[in-house]
């Protein structure tokens, strides 16, 4: 036989996929065929009794192993349920604790505020006046007065079956941000979202589908309350991009919104601000109360000079 005549057999077109072909086209263990062929040829011999015992023991062991595996794989379900219940319980208790601590903080802040104004009323009435003004502006103090209430709610579909409807027909944090910014631009003096007063340091943010105001979650329907002259506020708000956005949200996603003037709104204060910067107040002569010289209001952007009491 000449070497030159030896032609390499042309492989199948899918030769590069032998692994996949092996899996797809020969799912049956090839040894079944081999053993069947050997049996047909009469080659299959061996001590019968020993084999029976061997097969029996091996099959029993495998069966026991697989049963154990399945049983132990099914078992943790109870554990998961228990863990879930435990977590739910802890969350509920944690929430109750947070609520009571918040109430404590509110009473404490009130007492501090009362003591502060008592102390200042006698020693420095002018400082007290500017402090009160700063507290209103920064959102620390509770305020009330006429204003505008903007309500937003998820589309009707979402409220009926929350799992199936389009998630973009929910009210997003950006929508509320836009409304809040529009109200500020329209001249609102104080704003609260679902009772959470917005301070100069507040943020309306989205965490997944949830909306957070100052890190505390708020739930729909959202009510954004702004204090200011209702007529002016409404007129000027309707000219902002927020108003256009609300219309678009309603037309495109079915988000329900409403802007209404309210005679009297009561906005809670955000409470005592955490002091990030403080200095000992030196009483000065009356009339030289420049705003830069009143370090009582906490401003995080102010770099703390050395030597100040923290």
């Amino acid at each position: 036989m000449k070497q030159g005549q030896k032609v390499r057999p042309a492989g199948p077109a899918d030769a590069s996929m032998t692994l996949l072909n092996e899996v797809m086209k020969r799912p049956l263990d090839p040894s079944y065929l081999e053993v069947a062929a050997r049996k047909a040829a009469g080659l299959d011999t061996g001590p019968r009794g020993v084999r029976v015992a061997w097969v029996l023991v091996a099959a029993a062991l495998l069966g026991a192993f697989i049963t154990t595996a399945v049983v132990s794989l099914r078992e943790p379900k109870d554990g998961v349920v228990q863990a879930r219940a435990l977590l739910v319980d802890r969350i509920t208790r944690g929430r109750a604790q947070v609520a009571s601590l918040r109430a404590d903080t509110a009473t404490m802040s009130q007492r501090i505020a009362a003591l502060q104004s008592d102390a200042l009323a006698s020693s420095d009435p002018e400082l007290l006046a500017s402090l009160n003004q700063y507290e209103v502006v920064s959102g620390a103090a509770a305020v009330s007065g006429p204003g505008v209430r903007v309500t937003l709610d998820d589309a009707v579909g979402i409220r009926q079956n929350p799992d199936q409807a389009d998630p973009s027909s929910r009210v997003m944090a950006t929508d509320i941000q836009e409304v809040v910014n529009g109200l500020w631009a329209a001249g609102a003096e104080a704003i609260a979202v679902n009772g959470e007063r917005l301070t100069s340091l507040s943020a309306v943010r989205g965490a997944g589908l949830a909306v957070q105001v100052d890190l505390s979650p708020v739930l729909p329907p959202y009510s954004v309350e702004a204090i200011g002259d209702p007529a002016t506020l409404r007129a000027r708000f309707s000219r902002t991009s927020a108003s256009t956005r609300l219309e678009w949200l309603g037309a495109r996603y079915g988000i329900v919104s409403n802007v209404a003037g309210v005679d009297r709104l009561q906005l809670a204060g955000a409470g005592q601000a955490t002091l990030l910067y403080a200095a000992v107040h030196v009483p000065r002569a009356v009339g030289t109360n420049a705003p830069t010289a009143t370090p009582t209001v906490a401003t995080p952007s102010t770099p703390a000079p050395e030597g100040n009491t923290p």
Partner: protein
Amino acid sequence: MIALIGLVIGVVAGLILEPSVPVVLQPYLPIAVVAALDALFGALRALLDGLFDERVFLVSFLSNIIVAALIVFIGDQLGVGSQLSTAVVVVLGIRIFSNVASIRRQLFRA
């Protein structure tokens, strides 16, 4: 037949005794079960084709489980455990599917 009896004995023993699996082996149990399913369907098909052999069944059963667990173990050591588990599940899944398809053809001629 003997293998079937043995399996039934093993299953009953496993249900009654409820031995606990060592924690070290826990990650390999799902893969082992899938491998066992593959061997079972392979055996069923061989039975319908008239090719069934107990020894081949047991050896394929055992080797399937051991190889699948070994692949996952090596994957875990290399940091690609979940990917290799996916690979094993895909391969065994394809085999189960084609075996079941051929069983269906045998049984219903369709």
